[in-house]
């Protein structure tokens, strides 16, 4: 897969390094020559120096044949323009734009940007998860609101502790998808035993959350 990354800051650099590690073809467009030189020393000959909002620079970077164009500069106006150019002028496969200011999300959406990544929103959600008292925490809510991926730490007071998955009275429409057992990932089957202290990931509708909480993480008796 060919991925064109515009913006060689921290996000662009780590994204590029990760993709190169997975054997993808990568180009990073970076405007600042010194930064580009630094990155070149770190991850190899994949840098193109130039203003990535310019159509001529995007063309030289092979925007039209890119499977993914990731606009990850620190400037939302630049990211919006790059995403618009990639999608509508060059017809690139898929475009992703970084949102530096989450308040720009409605505009990005109205402008038809397909994929949006907001590091500040993600960070805010992670911190909220850490400080929240809720025992059933939402990891990912699907856009239509019908289901979410949630996590719960299995309490020793739960009636489900030390029982095989098939014997646990799961609330309707909820599905256990993953068990984190002392840092190991387990894909559950009906015979898998869940133990107190396990972190459980489930797909469940929002209305099932109270039932999940009383089943898996009840108040201490």
């Amino acid at each position: 897969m060919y991925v064109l990354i515009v913006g060689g800051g921290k996000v662009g650099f780590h994204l590029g390094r990760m993709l190169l590690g997975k054997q993808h073809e990568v180009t990073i467009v970076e405007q600042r020559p010194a930064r580009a030189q630094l990155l070149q020393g770190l991850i190899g000959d994949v840098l193109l120096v130039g203003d990535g909002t310019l159509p001529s620079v995007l063309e030289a970077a092979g925007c039209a044949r890119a499977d993914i164009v990731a606009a990850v500069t620190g400037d939302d106006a630049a990211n919006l323009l790059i995403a618009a150019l990639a999608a509508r002028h060059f017809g690139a496969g898929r475009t992703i734009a970084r949102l530096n200011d989450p308040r720009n999300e409605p505009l990005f959406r109205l402008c038809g940007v397909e994929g949006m990544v907001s590091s500040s929103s993600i960070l805010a959600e992670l911190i909220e998860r850490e400080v929240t008292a809720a025992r059933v925490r939402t990891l990912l809510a699907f856009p239509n609101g019908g289901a979410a991926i949630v996590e719960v730490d299995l309490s020793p007071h739960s009636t489900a502790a030390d029982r095989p998955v098939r014997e646990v009275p799961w609330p309707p429409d909820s599905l256990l998808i993953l068990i984190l057992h002392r840092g190991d990932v387990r894909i559950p089957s009906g015979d898998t035993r869940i133990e107190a202290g396990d972190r459980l990931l489930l797909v469940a509708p929002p209305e099932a959350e109270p039932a999940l909480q009383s089943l898996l993480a009840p108040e201490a008796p």
Partner: protein
Amino acid sequence: MRIVVIGCGRIGAHVAKSLSAAGNDVCVVDTDVSSLSRLGDRFRGQTVVGHGFDQTVLEQAQVARADAVIVLTNVDATNFMVARAATELFGVRRVSVRVNDPEFASVFAELGLNILDLPDLVLGQVQRSLALSATAGDGTPAPGTAR
């Protein structure tokens, strides 16, 4: 007419002052307070400090009831975003966008923007003035002068 001008550089200030003097209800937006001083003491319109693509700034500038928005900053990406915000978030019909880098002229037009093609305007004037001086300097004596 209510006209919102985004960007108060030399060009933005010139346009805002002229439109205001001609009797329009003009509002000027710039991120920099000192740029707004270019408007001078006699400017009677409204000024707002902030980013032209910031929704709250555009609300302060009452863009929704503007007859036209003229986007005149010297950064093309900013101009693009401001224009999209005025159109998509506030439904302004008449939005004109300054083009700084000639590369964006055709691309902005292709993306549906109404452009003010600054490089091309300058080029046109240069070509006309060269054409004039070429006529004057081609060796033909001007009428009524002796050789």
